[in-house]
């Protein structure tokens, strides 16, 4: 997803561009589905099978899911809540942690503490999400001798700390694992060092001004761009975390569908992927609008490239 | 400077259009470039003097007219034998030194690569001779373009052009962006080389003062007309 933003074209054009991209990737997904070996399609040609899947997508035939019996939307609704919680809290915490950390580390970069933060973040970033979540599990069982799996949450007797653990550990492992947090933090730091060399930054200083507000704005701008660039990566992470902490989210659903032997539940699979892709395009749309608000001079009629 | 010199390049009714003929940069220009002279091309920035020289050397498209050099009309030369007909003898120096120096390789290496094209066998001492010619010490052949200052980069680009032993050099704003005194040093070096090798030199610049003192003839491009003094 190129992270440039189309300026000058009106909002409707942007929305239609995102919808077109969404539809195209769904068609591509249906095309990929045709490769899954399935007993019920063993004699039909790939083309008819592709049209079958497309039909499910276009005509919204989501009323019957094979595994769960009731309509696909119920399944999506019940499970989607948890995945949405993971995504939103992951993005929110990334933003809340990157702004102060990157500001502190560039503004006082000669302090040993900021160097220590950089190195430790880099080291953690090389731990994959799967490993980090398992290590968190081991730590939780060792220290709190309580296994933070999802169904413990609703169980009675779960103390506040146990509930907090259940909610926070998956989010932490999504963020810190696979270097997602580190890459966002790194791009924010690069942006600040770049701003500090800009001549308008020196202009502010020369006029006796305090550039903190402009630095924060610069961080937010890079945050939005790098997060929207990493969103597909984040969703892959969510699938892993849901499996490890056995959260009943969309990720677990996807894995269950794939693990099914014999008849695969295509309508459910298409619906889940559709929801995930909508989330991706929603984040992109948010990115475009926020960037237009941050850089007003680029949006009123001036056509500039990426 | 006697005028009855041999004509190197004869140009008649050269026209350059833009956006499929709607906008005209210049139309039906006629002028000659003599051998061994220093010709100045002057004009306000954006008046098309660079495009004029680039269309002369077939670096631009949608150009019509006749550019006679050694009896051939350069505009009709086919794309893949341009390399032998035009590029061998007519050299164009770009305005920004970054576009002529490969950042990933040392100055010496890029000069040797150019030398290899022109089949001059004694590469090593040729290279040092050319560096000396443009005023760069021998130790600079192991430096990267990034480590050179603005003036030094322009000297390296000049050395790279001279290596190809061209008949004529067309330099596009070779001194812009430098201080007056640095420009002065570069200019006097360029003039001494031009005198020694009896090279035809075409200088493009928006700074009338330098061009006046330097060139034998001055061509001024003003709203698509050409006045020669």
């Amino acid at each position, binding site marked *: *997803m*190129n992270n440039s933003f189309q300026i000058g074209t009106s909002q409707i054009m942007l929305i239609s561009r995102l919808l077109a*991209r969404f539809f*195209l*990737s769904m068609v*591509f997904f249906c095309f990929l589905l045709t*490769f*899954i*070996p399935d007993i019920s399609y063993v004699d039909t040609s790939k083309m008819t099978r592709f049209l079958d899947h497309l039909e499910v997508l276009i005509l919204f035939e989501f009323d019957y899911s094979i595994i769960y019996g009731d309509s696909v939307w119920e399944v999506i609704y019940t499970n989607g809540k948890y995945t949405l919680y993971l995504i939103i809290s992951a993005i929110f915490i990334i933003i809340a942690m990157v702004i102060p950390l990157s500001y502190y580390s560039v503004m006082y970069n000669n302090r040993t503490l900021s160097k220590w933060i950089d190195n430790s973040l880099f*080291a953690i970033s*090389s*731990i*994959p999400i*799967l*490993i980090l979540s*398992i*290590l968190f*599990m*081991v730590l939780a*069982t*060792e220290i709190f001798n309580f*296994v933070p799996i999802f169904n413990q949450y609703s169980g009675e007797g779960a103390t506040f700390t146990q509930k907090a653990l259940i909610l926070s550990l998956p989010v932490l492992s999504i963020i810190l694992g*696979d270097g997602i947090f580190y890459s966002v933090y790194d791009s924010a730091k690069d942006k600040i060092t770049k701003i500090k060399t800009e001549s308008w930054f020196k202009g502010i200083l020369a006029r006796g001004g305090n550039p903190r507000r402009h630095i924060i704005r610069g961080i937010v701008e890079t945050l939005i761009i790098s997060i929207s660039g990493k969103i*597909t990566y984040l*969703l*892959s992470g969510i*699938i*892993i975390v849901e*499996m*490890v902490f056995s959260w009943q989210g969309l990720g677990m659903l*996807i894995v269950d569908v*794939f*693990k099914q032997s014999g008849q695969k539940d295509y309508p459910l699979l298409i619906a889940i*992927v559709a929801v*995930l*892709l909508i989330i991706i395009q929603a984040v992109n749309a948010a990115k475009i609008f926020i960037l237009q608000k941050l850089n007003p001079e680029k949006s009123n009629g001036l056509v500039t490239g990426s | 400077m006697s005028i009855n010199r041999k004509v190197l390049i004869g140009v008649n009714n050269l026209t350059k259009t833009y956006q499929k003929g709607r906008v005209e940069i210049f139309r039906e220009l006629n002028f000659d470039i003599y051998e061994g002279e220093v010709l100045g091309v002057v004009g306000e920035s954006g008046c098309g003097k660079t495009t004029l020289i680039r269309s002369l*050397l077939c*670096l631009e498209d949608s150009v019509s007219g006749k550019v006679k050099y050694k009896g051939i009309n350069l505009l009709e030369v086919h794309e893949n034998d341009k*390399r032998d007909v035009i*590029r061998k003898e007519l*050299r*164009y120096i*770009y305005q*920004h030194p*970054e576009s*002529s120096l*490969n*950042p*990933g*390789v040392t100055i010496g290496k890029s000069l040797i*690569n*150019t030398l290899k*094209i*022109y089949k001059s066998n004694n590469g090593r001492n040729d290279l040092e001779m050319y560096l000396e010619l443009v005023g760069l010490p021998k130790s600079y052949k192991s430096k*990267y*373009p990034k*480590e050179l200052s603005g003036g030094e980069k322009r000297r390296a680009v000049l050395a*790279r*052009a001279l290596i*190809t032993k061209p008949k004529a050099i067309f330099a596009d704003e070779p001194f812009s962006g430098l201080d007056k005194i640095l420009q002065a040093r570069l200019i006097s070096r360029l003039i001494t080389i031009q005198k020694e090798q009896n090279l035809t030199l075409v200088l493009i610049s928006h700074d009338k003062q330098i061009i006046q003192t330097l060139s034998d003839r001055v061509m001024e491009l003003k709203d698509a007309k050409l006045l020669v003094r």
Partner: protein
Amino acid sequence: MKQPIKKYFKPQNIQLLIGISVLISLLTANTLWFSQHNPMISRGPSDMPPQIEIFQSLLYTPDISTYIVEDDTWDSWGNSGGRRISISSDSLLISNFPITAIQTGSDYEYHPRFKANDISELELTESPEGMTLTDGSIQWMPGELQIGTFPVSLRIETDSTTYEVDYTLRVTKEFYPLGTNERGNSLSGLLIAGSKWTLIPGMIAASIAISFGLLMGVFSNYYGSHVASMFDGFSDLIESIPALIIIFIIAVASQFNMYLIMAGVGLILIPKVYAVIKSTVNQFVENQFVESALEIGFEKKVVYWREIVWYNCKSDMISLTTYCITFSILIEITISYLNLGVQDPDISWGLILLEGRDSILSGEYWMVVFPAILISISILGLTLLGSGAKQFLDPKFK
């Protein structure tokens, strides 16, 4: 004034050092596995904790039962053993846990430290043959034949009551440095065997991604804009769907054939390589470098392949290759953990993690901690190798 850093302690040299050492260790693990094949995964006792003492004390708490002995009661046969009442071990008066899994021939020594300080007398009531208790510490040298489990019980008499502590000691013939899993395979053997799914599939994915990405990146400028828009469309399409879902489809479609899956990983990484190469080449096209190189007399393919790619993109290539390898290791352990990748008879790190998962509940952490650490170190090592080589190759003009 502080002097600039010495020449050889520059960060990239250290990164290179770590990276190369990790690479070599992975390679040796691979060659070890391919040369010896099965004998390394010897059959041993199941669920044996790691026999390296530090690991065992860190990662395993042996089950110890403690009793209080009523000294004035007699059992039916008339000896003065006295009745034993078991008490919960956390009121244990011993503060350090004994090692409970050792190898024949190793000298075993356990010096119990007591929380209470009024200990009057210690006595070994039950112990394997040859174990002695000398001034407060138990010593033993298991003979070659003494293999199996041996109960040990220690009687501790304080002024008020007498306690008795029982634990079982397991002795094996072979040495299991990192312990064993339920089926008795030595974890260290498993890990070495599992390493075969790191470098080779990584190279497959890297070679596909780098070659296609490079070709697309260069040709998108070489042949003009319509080719470029086609490549852009292709890479946008692949990047629009989360990588893991595409991998699942390929895994299921190829009936878990790892080599095909790794080819799929290569396919998914093409857009990333394509973006890097295209941006570098675009830079050269935009600042007229290509045109001036053509003008001076280079041929078009020389300009693109030597001047731009060979001189300037070498360092990106290496860092991208290491990225591809780390990405493919990531994917391998994830899909094997979800049982969609390497299947049971075969061995891979992901599978070890999967087996290890249910051992977390029973407190046997070593089955999970060792593969986790090993995977993280190899990924960190390869990333450092990539960034070190990148800085090493183009320190001058970056």
